[in-house]
């Protein structure tokens, strides 16, 4: 059977749907297609899902309090992972042209690789995060909520 999936170079969409949320004291967005579901922290506890706390995964200092109320789920193979977030904001569709790469100085910082770009919004800057880039960190630092 012929493989009719588009080649990678032709696979760049004109627009992307983002899920905006707050975590680790910052405004962030993830491509909606990466998210398999959103559950409460209690549900994550009951399902014993490996959950990463963004502030800790990114090595943010102690001033940033991770007190997640929701968990974004994503799947890689047979494994389901979770990312704790403070609050879900909204969903937006953005043209590729409105996105910008992470500023040069930050792109050199070890540990910030999960951030692949930024989305300028009227009163804020939204950090674009790739959950799959976080996966290896979650594998090492996953924890259950207390």
């Amino acid at each position, binding site marked *: 059977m012929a493989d009719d999936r588009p080649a990678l170079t032709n696979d760049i969409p004109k627009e992307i749907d983002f899920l905006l949320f707050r975590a680790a004291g910052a405004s962030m967005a993830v491509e909606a297609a990466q998210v398999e579901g959103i559950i409460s922290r209690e549900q994550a506890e009951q399902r014993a899902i490996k959950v990463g706390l963004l502030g800790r995964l990114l090595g943010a200092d102690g001033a940033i309090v991770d007190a997640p109320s929701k968990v974004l789920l994503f799947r890689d193979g047979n494994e389901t992972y979770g990312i704790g977030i403070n609050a879900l904001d909204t969903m937006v569709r953005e043209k590729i042209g409105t996105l910008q790469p992470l500023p*040069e100085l930050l792109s050199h910082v*070890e540990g910030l690789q999960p*951030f692949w770009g930024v989305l300028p919004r009227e009163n804020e*800057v939204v*950090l674009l995060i790739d959950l799959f880039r976080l996966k290896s960190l979650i594998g090492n630092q996953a924890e259950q909520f207390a």
Partner: protein
Amino acid sequence: MKEKRKTDLIIEELKKRKGKERTVDVEEEKVKVVIFTLKDGHYAFPGSDVKEILPFMDISAVPGAPDFIPGVINNRGDIESVINLNRFLGLPDSDRTAATRIAMASKAGVRSGIILDSVLDVVDVPVSSIKPPLSTLDDAKKELVSGEMTYHDGIVVMLDIGRLFGKLCAHGR
């Protein structure tokens, strides 16, 4: 020899003097500098490396960024990193006031905002007025200092933005 009027002689003399002044101006190479304050004193950047001086604005935090990069700003749609120079120079943090500014600097393909306590002046100074830095500077500053000059009887420390960005890029890796 034809006699000249006194006023003609004076005008000739004035023109000669003016000509000499112009010659001096041409020979004395000048450089634009942005003089600013930071906690403990006066500093300057080469004006050619400073593209814009902005009022202080909200900084969006980037979790996991080093403490001398407090976050990013939205400068008319362009997202730029911001440097807290105090942290990099080993100075205590400054209070944000109405005089606080963000200098947008660009060097060697790197662009970033730098928080300044206040901008005092943007002036052209003779290159010869910039002297080598004192050897008594502490290590944190020494690496970033390209020279010193006087401004209103005070010492201004010239900082090298290229070295600053180089150190920041190396630190992040």
